[in-house]
């Protein structure tokens, strides 16, 4: 048994998880988004019996298949990494966290795996109705899968429905519905899945715009754009709304993340939201807490409205959260980081004393220690924090990623609105510049999607589970060199496969949809 954890091991374990998550998320949103769009197209085929819609749906299905395979491959690694790299986490909260993963496998993955085979290979083997149902069920399977994994992720950000058991030394689930339907989970699901429709729609519009630019497949491109723009506009508006809800949840449950997202060091009443800003760094490269922004455009009172639905409410900054002493919305006074750390250490000490008393069959002492443990349990994770500064996530990353996500989200609403309008006015064919805008929007949609996860995951550091377990207590006891090796293997492997995927996609796009048998 090692005596202490190598700090580099924590960073490499985080880096590996981030790497696999980022790669995985390159593919998942397109799967979710294309599933809806090709489902709509096949439904049009089913209703109209027009072969054009069949060819259109099949083309997008081909791209879906290329993307799906690598999404599945990267997803496999993510699931098992909870065990391989975060083994302590897996024990400490496995009783709660394992359930959504198992349900995901039983309910969602098999649905996806079964009906995707019918979707690809069943065209001439099953009825049109069964095939259409299979296409929708493939998408539904992917969406149910997203539900459960997002329930698991939301639980890490806002742990509910569980109780710590000192005898088994872990958290145990006591309310399944509280976990499965927590407001954070519900909102996260809609925000994440529907924002994936945004990406899928941007992808379809971008690819279709390329055909228009090349002056080929015009009907296919215009019809695809029309459907994608309608789906995209709806999805982008809903994403903005759920994003606002998400901000509200972050303020309630993860105030440090919100402060980092805003680079807010000193709390304010009636706090403004930074619409655009540049961070101000000192000579040693740190953000200057006295004047964190060198230039900014602010929306007055907006942060207070976002956080507490009250334009005059107080939003604590990073320094306030570390120093405590301010009044919380429930009227109590916030503890300082140091006080929380001390209470966390008391909780850990009480756990040790409880177990010792139990071993000695001293029930009176065990009960007394258990009381201390319960009183301090909300701060349990703080007992593993080495110094208050460790509680501050990477401010620059959170700040800029948030702005990228929100800025591009707003742009995408305008973009889809514009494409839908131009599509309705039948002006897309002739607008060469708009075709270029549409093509360039594809990487921007990916960037927005990735930025969203950067905000969510980097912003919650150092917590693996908010307030309960920091990353340094969640890892596996491995040699740093092992994790470094697998990190670089993954990096190499996923990069090669990504390049291959993009090349195959490009070739498939250049080849284009199947030709109409009658006109070919």
């Amino acid at each position, binding site marked *: 048994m090692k005596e202490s954890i190598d700090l580099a091991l924590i960073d490499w374990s985080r880096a590996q998880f981030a790497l696999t998550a980022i790669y995985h998320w390159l593919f998942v949103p397109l799967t979710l988004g294309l599933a809806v769009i090709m489902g709509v197209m096949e439904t049009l085929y089913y209703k109209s019996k027009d072969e054009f819609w069949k060819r259109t749906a099949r083309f997008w299905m081909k791209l879906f298949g290329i993307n799906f395979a690598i999404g599945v491959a990267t997803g496999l690694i993510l699931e098992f990494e909870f065990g391989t790299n975060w083994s302590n986490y897996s024990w400490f909260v496995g009783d709660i966290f394992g359930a959504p993963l198992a349900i995901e496998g039983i309910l969602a993955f098999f649905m996806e795996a079964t009906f995707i085979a019918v979707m690809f290979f069943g065209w001439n083997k099953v009825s049109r109705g069964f095939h259409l149902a299979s296409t929708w069920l493939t998408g539904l399977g992917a969406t149910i899968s997203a539900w459960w994994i997002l329930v698991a992720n939301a639980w890490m950000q806002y742990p509910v429905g569980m109780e710590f058991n000192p005898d088994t030394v872990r958290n145990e*689930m006591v309310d399944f519905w509280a976990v499965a339907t927590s407001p954070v989970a519900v909102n996260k699901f809609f925000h994440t899945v529907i924002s994936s429709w945004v990406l899928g729609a941007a992808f379809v519009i971008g690819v279709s715009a390329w055909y228009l630019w090349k002056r080929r497949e015009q009907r296919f491109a215009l019809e695809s754009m029309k459907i994608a723009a309608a789906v995209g506009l709806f999805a982008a508006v809903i994403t903005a709304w759920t994003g606002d809800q998400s901000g509200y949840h972050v303020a309630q449950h993860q105030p440090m993340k919100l402060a980092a997202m805003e680079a807010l060091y000193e709390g304010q009443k009636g706090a403004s939201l930074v619409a655009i800003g540049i961070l101000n760094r000192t000579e040693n490269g740190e953000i200057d807490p006295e004047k964190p922004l060198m230039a900014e455009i602010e929306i007055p009172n907006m942060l207070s409205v976002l956080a507490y639905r009250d334009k005059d409410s107080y939003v604590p900054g990073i320094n306030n959260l570390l120093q405590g002493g301010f009044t919380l919305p429930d009227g109590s006074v916030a503890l300082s980081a140091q006080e929380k750390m001390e209470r966390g250490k008391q909780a850990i000490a009480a756990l040790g004393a409880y177990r010792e008393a139990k071993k000695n069959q001293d029930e009176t002492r065990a009960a007394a220690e258990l009381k201390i443990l319960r009183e301090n349990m909300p701060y349990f994770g703080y007992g593993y924090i080495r110094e208050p500064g460790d509680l501050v996530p990477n401010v620059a990353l959170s700040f800029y990623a948030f702005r990228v996500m929100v800025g591009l989200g707003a742009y995408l609403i305008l973009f889809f609105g514009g494409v839908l309008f131009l599509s309705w006015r039948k002006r897309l064919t002739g607008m060469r510049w708009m075709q270029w805008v549409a093509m360039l929007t594809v990487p921007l949609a990916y960037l927005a999607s990735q930025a969203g996860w950067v905000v969510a995951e980097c912003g919650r550091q150092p917590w693996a589970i908010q307030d309960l377990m920091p990353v340094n207590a969640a890892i596996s006891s491995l040699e740093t060199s092992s994790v470094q090796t697998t990190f670089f293997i993954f990096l190499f492997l996923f990069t090669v496969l990504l390049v291959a995927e993009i090349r195959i996609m490009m070739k498939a796009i250049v080849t284009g949809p199947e030709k109409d048998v009658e006109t070919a």
Partner: protein
Amino acid sequence: MDYVFYQEYWWFLVSLLGGLLVFLLFVQGGNALIFSLGQNETERKMIVNSTGRKWEFTFTTLVTFGGAFFASFPLFYSTSFGGAYWLWMVILFSFVLQAVSYEYQSKKGNLLGKNTYRAFLVLNGIVGPFFLGCAVATFFTGADFTVSKEQLLTEAMPVISAWGNNWHGLDALANSWNMVLGWAVVFLSRTLGALYLINNIQDEGIYQKARRAVFANAVPFLFLFLAFVIRLFLTEGFAVDPDSGRVFMEPFKYWHNLLALPVVAVIFLLGVAGVLGGIVATVFRAGYKKGIWWTGAGTVLAVLGLLLLAGYNHTAYYPSTADLQSSLTLANSCSSEFTLKTMSVVSLLIPFVLAYIFYAWRCIDRKKIDAKEMNDGEHTY
């Protein structure tokens, strides 16, 4: 229904998933035979497309096996995956390569070329079953780990599970009995793969070669499997005192388990009979193509029986060779009663899931794969 019932119920489900996973390794076994059975492009394409319509079931079963293990026995998930790091990583790498290889191998612009992706399929076809077999063998031979929940009280090093050496799972290869089961699973998967191709492809050339492959792979499989099983029943095992939870060595433990659990004994023996029946019928009856059903069902039952023997009747299913008392038992590694109960409600949907898989599978397989389908412009790999 008490806590013990739910523990045993979930061990049954995990074991069943393990059995289904080993059966579904026919995909890997079939892939390992791409170049030996497929002697021209059409034949190879038929083989890839035949296994390619089922690969997601194997993959999904692997993921669900992991998820179910995590949910029901989280201490195994944390101890084995976090400790035997490299053993699991090798398995995962090989499955990652497989997942993309079907879709990419015949597509234009695939960067690495068709044969590289097919080589990945062969690699996964051998490496995947071998390491999975080795991992399962450690349920009987043990692994070099310790578990100390008190460690969570140590702020500087709160990790409760530790591996005893720096090989992190590759040390399983140093135990010859792990290797025996690993190779047994490789040959079993190849046998299953050949049986599946016989059933799924309408092509005389492949049929004849696959039939010979069944025989060629079944012989070493049976030799290795019987060696493992005979040794298992003769050796000492890791018993648990149900009252104190203390783990101790008991001579002939697994043989005793077989005698003490007649239903499990019947499952295991029916499984072995099914495996043999499918192989014998295929090898000795010309034109017989349903061997995969017998051998496949037999595999599910035999593996199910074997895993039940590892965990039932007060046995430590994941023994520690470093510290006997760190060994994992159903009772000390399972989830809470509430979680197991909740998950049990979800598990009632499994028959429904199996039913739609069976229905969809039949729809797709109604027409066998043949050379004509490979060239008629429909979706193929």
